[in-house]
């Protein structure tokens, strides 16, 4: 956990008071909506269909139990008793009142949480691997660097009015759980031949109307230079990114139009001017941030405790354990994913009561720490294996032990037309219907790893382009239709999905997905071949044939 010091706390309080003044001026008419809009966006406040939506940052997906309780408190006191975890390690509240927002922010500031720059054309929440610091084989904890970048990009005087929003993600593992290749800047932490820590820097990834997979701009930037290098990228983007067309304003378009070589050259020139400056991080500065991350005092525990051996006789427990429990870097401990995808439920939602339960369980079993992943699930990162049976019972009671992590019903979905003013079609009911179709956990287990991603419009908040099966809502003559792609993925082998055929009406989406899954089961060369690999091997055509043969 990163512990805020007096300076971080002061800044948060100053920000809250500034926003309080801005809201007051808005409600009195001193600020027009046009003037106020960017100010509220920079504090995470959108206007949606029914009300304001309030997006709170969970930097690099790490939360303390105290912070989670504060989120539960906000859900209860200022909203309707629940929150929605997003694909960018944020949480959204859907029913907030503008007049009460400063108080909600003040309550969150007490526990060191904020909503700064969770929207608007500035640097968004810096995200990372939800298993940072606990994943086996990690180069080092990427959150140290995430926090350095978070601070550097918070209220940045030069980059608070960029052409468009800007997202950074960091990973330090072979397997990318942070989806860095679909970010404006993706950072892959690794060591050079001399054993020094640095980053492969990728740039220009993003989804939306014009999706791109990020390209490597520099294979190795030394850790001490990462702030100056990011600053150089942002400066080039701030000056040359397009501002004439909102759909062409992201850095991916600039990178695409200039080409990565030319863009890289511009950045390199700028960086040569910037690199030896106050932005260079000396060891003391890095150490300063590192020192404020605390790590649990792990016990020396057996790899296979008796409690686990005993519980293995219960097939229901075993199914959950095999699905939701993952290896930890310390022997005797596990990472436990908490599925927020119950059958028939809206993906990523948690009630205030569930948040409180999770906070209590984190205190009891996970050194008070919770993680949020981009798949819209939570995790307890430090669970002693002997505690798994007891934890499972408690999670099951709270509806948090659905054994569908990474399976077909572990769906990523945006809020869609039920909430969002940008959406063309609904996402949540589609997801709910799919979870009902695949409610049988044995069948889901047989199908194996399969990511379904649903977006209610081209802005792609549900990351449909990189779903193994991607579903995009569109509008056709006032009716909801859905385009379906297959073969996308968001990990280290990131790829964009391919359209399988004409869009289908709302009522047929679940049937089509079932057909695709059946086609896969018939086409795979062995039970070990994952859906995504079958699509890669055979292409879209055999799937298209089967799905559209009868339509």
């Amino acid at each position, binding site marked *: 956990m990163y512990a805020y010091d007096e300076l971080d706390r002061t800044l948060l309080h100053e920000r809250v008071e500034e926003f309080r003044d801005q809201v007051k001026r808005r409600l009195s008419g001193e600020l027009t909506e*046009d003037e106020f809009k960017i100010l509220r966006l920079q504090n995470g406040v959108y206007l949606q269909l029914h009300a304001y939506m309030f997006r709170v940052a969970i930097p690099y997906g790490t939360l303390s139990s105290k912070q989670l309780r504060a989120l539960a408190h906000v859900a209860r006191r200022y909203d309707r*008793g629940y929150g929605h975890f997003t694909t960018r390690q944020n949480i959204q509240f859907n029913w907030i009142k503008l007049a009460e927002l400063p108080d909600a922010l003040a309550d969150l500031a007490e526990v060191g949480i904020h909503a700064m720059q969770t929207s608007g054309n500035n640097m968004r929440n810096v995200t990372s691997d939800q298993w940072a610091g606990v994943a086996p084989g990690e180069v080092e904890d990427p959150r140290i660097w995430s926090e350095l970048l978070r601070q550097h990009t918070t209220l940045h005087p030069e980059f608070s009015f960029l052409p468009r929003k800007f997202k950074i993600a960091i990973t330090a593992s072979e397997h990318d759980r942070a989806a860095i290749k679909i970010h404006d800047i993706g950072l892959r932490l690794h060591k050079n031949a001399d054993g020094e820590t640095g980053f492969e820097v990728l740039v220009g990834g993003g989804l939306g109307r014009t999706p791109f997979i990020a390209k490597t701009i520099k294979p190795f930037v030394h850790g001490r230079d990462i702030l100056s290098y990011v600053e150089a990228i942002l400066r080039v983007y701030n000056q040359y990114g397009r501002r004439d067309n909102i759909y062409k304003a992201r850095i991916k378009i600039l990178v695409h139009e200039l080409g990565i070589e030319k863009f890289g050259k511009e950045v390199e020139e700028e960086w040569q001017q910037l690199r030896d400056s106050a932005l260079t991080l000396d060891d003391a500065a890095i150490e300063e941030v590192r020192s404020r991350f605390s790590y649990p005092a792990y016990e020396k525990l057996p790899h296979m405790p008796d409690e686990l051996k005993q519980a293995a006789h219960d097939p229901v427990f075993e199914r959950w354990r095999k699905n939701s429990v993952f290896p930890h870097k310390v022997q005797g401990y596990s990472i436990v994913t908490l599925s927020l995808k119950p059958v028939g439920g809206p993906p990523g939602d948690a009630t205030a009561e569930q948040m409180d339960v999770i906070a209590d369980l984190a205190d009891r079993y996970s050194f008070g720490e919770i993680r949020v992943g981009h798949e819209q699930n939570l995790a307890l990162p430090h669970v002693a294996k002997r505690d798994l049976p007891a934890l499972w019972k408690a999670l099951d009671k709270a509806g948090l032990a659905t054994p569908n992590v990474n399976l077909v019903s572990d769906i990523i979905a945006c809020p869609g037309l039920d909430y969002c003013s940008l959406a063309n079609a*609904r996402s949540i009911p589609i997801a709910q219907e799919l979870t009902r179709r695949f409610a049988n956990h044995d069948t889901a287990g047989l199908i194996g790893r399969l990511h379904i991603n649903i977006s209610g419009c081209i802005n792609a908040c549900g990351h449909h382009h990189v779903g193994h099966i991607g579903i995009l809502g569109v509008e056709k003559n006032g009716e909801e239709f859905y385009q379906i792609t297959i073969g996308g993925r968001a990990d280290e082998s990131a790829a964009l999905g391919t359209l399988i055929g004409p869009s289908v009406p709302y009522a047929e989406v679940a049937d089509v997905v079932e057909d695709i899954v059946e086609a896969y089961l018939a086409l795979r060369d062995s039970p070990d071949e994952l859906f995504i690999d079958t699509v890669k091997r055979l292409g879209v055509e055999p799937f298209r044939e089967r799905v559209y043969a009868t339509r």
Partner: protein
Amino acid sequence: MTSPLEQKKIRITGPSVVTANRTRDGVVIYRTAQQGWSAQLADAAIVRTSDDARALLAEAVADDVGAIGAYIAPVEIKDNGVIAPGNLREHIRSEGLTIELPVSA
């Protein structure tokens, strides 16, 4: 931001209302015939010509303090005179989500 009034082609094809969200709490509101706002679609002023729609919208937009994002939305007038939302989006805005909330509201 382009003012909705600058969108030259305000053309309606059927009965319409002007709707927005209330500034202080975001609640969905409808412009009434009495130069005010109501949270009930039943209270909305109905316009049937493009000129009337433009005039009602102009009046609504002028209230920048009270309301955000005013626009013209289609409605359907039922045989019994009841005003119903004219499309799914407006239906959701007026009647609420098509799914159950994770907790009872």
